[in-house]
């Protein structure tokens, strides 16, 4: 048939094709025999010698500088010991070896080994910041312990570890929740714990890379299969002035307390020092849990940032804001005054002035100069708690300043509504009287007071305190203060330093204005002087003020915990800091003058 004739050549060609394919399969089979039977032993040895490791490449964290370029945080090269869990043959033997060479004690190492991991090939940082001798000892035994590998890495170093611990912060390991949040974190990554390190974690951290390396059975690196380079983090320049920070620490001495220095024009934080402090360098590692626990359990609570987290009754430092409230609300006229006899009876209770003998006739400016309590008792009674609370809130009390480091305390401005809701107590009229001199249900942080005084010093703008120079600094709110009233309050605060009766008269040699404050911890008992009291019950000492008088550039808030009187304890601290600030400024005047003025050069069109 036609069809059959037609197909014969096709079938011949098809058969030829089949033979070619079969020949190819035969060749492949021969090749398999070669690989698997003749060379099988050799390939098996290669398989055993063939370990692929996934080694994280740590990104260098951004450095942190103070406003003049002094290094506050940097990275120093260090040796780390990595352990590749997949390659451990005998956990006990490895642990014993590590303990014997002095990497750590067995229980800590075991805990470390059992910590959550990042995929089967990821190594564990089992030792860090190794000394040369230890590295040499480990390397000598490298061939016995291929699962261990000494690797170069970084260690965070804070040259001013104690001075900047709270402001700059330190590093910690990520929490399980953070790891699960799917950010590019490894269990061995370090993240900022507090301060700027935490606030600017994203900027500083950079991106870790990784390297896939093939290594031999004794842990020698044979080659790199794939490399993902790390991206270093960005550097940060702070507004902080390390010289002022040092001056603050020195002026506080052994006392516990807080020092905040702000530039009232911008809110730039020049100093933020909380005492007692701690050395941030103790936390840079991954293995320093014991140190941390010791600090956490310290009764002095060095981990607490007293500048932003410590709340204290503001005492007399609240008086300028009461005065502003009184003048602005119109409850007192320009000539209003009181006659202070040392105490006044209100709502059936005697309220005493700190000056037993009384101040005699007291007007507004003099009330700030001598810090007359009776003036403010009567003013507070006229204002009423709602107006007081409203004005204190305007000056930023009762809410966080937004400095953005750590968990900032919001402080408290007590109101009848608050009393019912939180204390389940009615508001007594006498409480209003106490609040008028900064006692009772009113608490503030040193940072809040510094900011509120900055508003008095800069003509009525509530600035936002910030530590990083690149923040959109000018986020201030205008409080719309009456200039005449503000002038009178400023005069009163100037008189508190320069007036003959001023409570801070001992600072008269400095171009300062300010207010002392003494916050009661417990009610004073009759016939007991402050010096006789147990330290725990002594008053907190405050001084908040600014310098210089003309166009103020520094607002200083000083709190000394249980220090006693503000005039005797806190004011001198502030004086020393202002003196240091003036001296430091004299030093770099020429630097500022030399700085180029930025101007826009538009291209002509």
């Amino acid at each position, binding site marked *: 048939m036609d069809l059959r004739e037609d197909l014969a050549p096709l079938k011949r060609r*098809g058969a030829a*094709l089949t033979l070619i394919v079969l020949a190819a399969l035969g060749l492949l089979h021969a090749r*398999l025999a070669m690989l*698997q039977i003749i060379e099988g032993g050799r390939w098996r040895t290669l398989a055993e010698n063939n*370990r*692929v490791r996934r080694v994280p490449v740590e990104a260098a964290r951004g450095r942190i500088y103070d406003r003049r370029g002094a290094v506050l945080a940097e990275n120093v090269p260090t040796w780390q010991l990595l352990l590749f869990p997949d390659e451990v043959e005998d956990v006990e033997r490895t642990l014993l070896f590590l303990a014997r060479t002095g990497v750590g004690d067995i229980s800590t190492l075991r805990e470390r080994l059992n910590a959550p991991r990042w995929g089967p090939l990821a190594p564990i940082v089992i030792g860090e910041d190794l000394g040369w001798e230890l590295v040499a000892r480990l390397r000598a035994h490298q061939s016995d312990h291929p699962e261990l590998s000494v690797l170069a890495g970084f260690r965070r170093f804070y040259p001013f570890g104690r001075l900047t611990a709270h402001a700059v912060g330190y590093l910690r390991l990520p929490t399980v929740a953070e790891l699960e949040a799917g950010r590019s974190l490894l269990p061995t990554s370090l993240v900022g714990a507090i301060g700027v390190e935490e606030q600017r974690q994203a900027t500083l951290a950079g991106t870790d890379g990784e390297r896939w390396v093939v290594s031999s059975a004794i842990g020698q690196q044979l080659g790199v299969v794939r490399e993902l380079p790390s991206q270093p983090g960005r550097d940060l320049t702070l507004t902080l002035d390390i010289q002022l920070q040092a001056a603050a620490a020195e002026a506080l001495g052994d006392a516990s307390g807080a020092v905040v220095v702000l530039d009232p024009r911008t809110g730039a934080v020049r100093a933020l020092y909380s005492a007692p402090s701690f050395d941030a360098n103790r936390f840079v590692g991954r293995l320093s849990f014991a140190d941390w626990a010791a600090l956490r359990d310290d009764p002095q609570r060095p981990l607490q940032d007293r500048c932003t987290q410590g709340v204290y009754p503001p005492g007399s430092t609240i008086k300028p804001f009461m005065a502003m409230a009184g003048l602005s609300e119109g409850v007192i006229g320009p000539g209003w005054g009181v006659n202070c006899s040392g105490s006044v009876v209100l709502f059936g209770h005697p309220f005493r002035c700190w000056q037993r003998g009384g101040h005699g006739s007291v007007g507004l400016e003099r009330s700030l100069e001598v810090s007359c309590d009776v003036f403010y008792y009567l003013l507070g009674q006229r204002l009423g708690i709602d107006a007081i609370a409203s004005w204190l809130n305007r000056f930023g009390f009762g809410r966080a300043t937004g400095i953005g480091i750590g968990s900032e305390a919001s402080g408290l401005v007590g109101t009848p509504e608050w009393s019912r809701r939180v204390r389940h107590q009615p508001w007594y009229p006498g409480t209003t009287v106490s609040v008028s001199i900064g006692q009772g249900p009113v608490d503030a942080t040193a940072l809040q007071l510094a900011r509120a005084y900055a508003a008095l010093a800069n003509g009525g703008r509530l600035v936002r305190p910030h530590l990083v120079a690149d923040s959109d600094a000018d986020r201030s709110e205008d409080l719309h203060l009456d200039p005449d009233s503000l002038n009178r309050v400023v005069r009163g605060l100037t008189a508190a330093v320069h007036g003959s009766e001023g409570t801070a008269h001992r600072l008269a040699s400095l171009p300062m204005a300010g207010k002392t404050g003494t916050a009661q911890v417990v009610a004073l008992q009759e016939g007991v002087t402050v010096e006789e009291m147990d330290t725990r019950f002594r008053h907190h000492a405050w001084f908040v003020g600014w310098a210089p008088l003309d166009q103020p550039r520094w607002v200083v808030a000083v709190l000394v915990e249980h220090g006693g009187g503000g005039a005797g304890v806190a004011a001198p601290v502030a004086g020393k800091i202002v003196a240091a600030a003036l001296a430091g400024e004299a030093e770099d005047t020429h630097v500022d003058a030399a700085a180029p003025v930025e101007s826009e050069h538009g291209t002509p069109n």
Partner: protein
Amino acid sequence: MEHRTDPWLLLAVVGILSASLATLQAVAQVVGPRLFTRQLIWGAAGVVLLWLLSRVHVTVYERLAPVFYAGAVLALVAVLVVGEARGGTRGWFAIGPVTVQPSEFARLATAFIVAAWLGKGRQRRLSARDTLIVTGLVLLPTALVLLEPDLGVALTYLPLLAAALWLGGLPARAWVAIALLGVLATLGAWNMVLKPYQKDRVLTVLDPERDPYGAGYQVRQSKIAVGSGSLLGQGLGRGSQSALRFLPAQHTDFIFAAWAEATGFVGSTLLLLAYAVLLVRTAIAALAADTRHGLILVGLIGAWLAFQVVVNLGMVVGWLPTTGITLPLFSYGGSSLLTTCAALGVVQSVWRYRLVNQ
């Protein structure tokens, strides 16, 4: 009169599918357990598809070839526009939870149209006009796949063209011309088309130790896996190469290496035997065909499957550069598996509906 479905071919298919599932199960720790389940579903669906298509009369494929081909070309264009990209290749349609790779199915449609065109011819030698038409019919989808770009799949279209020209009876001098053109094209591709990493792969075949941790890494690891299987293998799931992830793409391109490591020379011989049975039974179906169309159709399918098997295994044993060509019925992947089963179903249709006593 219908013939019985070829039991040898079915046995080979089921055997290869079982080995594939066993290997996926063994490397589940590394590639995830879901692949096994999915491959099981695809495999079952594939066998059903094979059975169904073997019951469609072979003339249907001839008549509907233009429809299939037009649909395939449209799908390949559409995937370039609305397709989903994976690792830089835009080659998948996402339909609910499954993704479909049209370039796999389009290969079968291309086999249909070429077989239908050549099946009509009567002359002993291929005319110049037919040569051009057949070449165009194959190169159109190939070019579209190259645009995705998916070099591995595009290469699997070439055996269709080669087999069509061979079976159609291209004169000897034309083959000489093609060989010359091939050399020129290779030189041109080397200088203009191939990316540096692709050149590295080719050079690695010529000199395996050239860059053992870079371009040569995959092949070297593959050879280590195959070789360390020795005679009896390390046992399924116990191969150190596969378990420790040294073996790249161990569920797709390099799945044979994982199998060879686990089952040794015995296992790889069995698998090779299964492929030999599959290809020989396909060849027998082609030679038993009673029409030009049936013979060419089965011949094209057989050539394509043989090409994939030989090139994939050649890559695994380090003879050919890594190109991303999968092992039919064995590599993980639903589109490839279903297409292969469909093609074998078509082969069986030719086998079952051939004339008796021809």
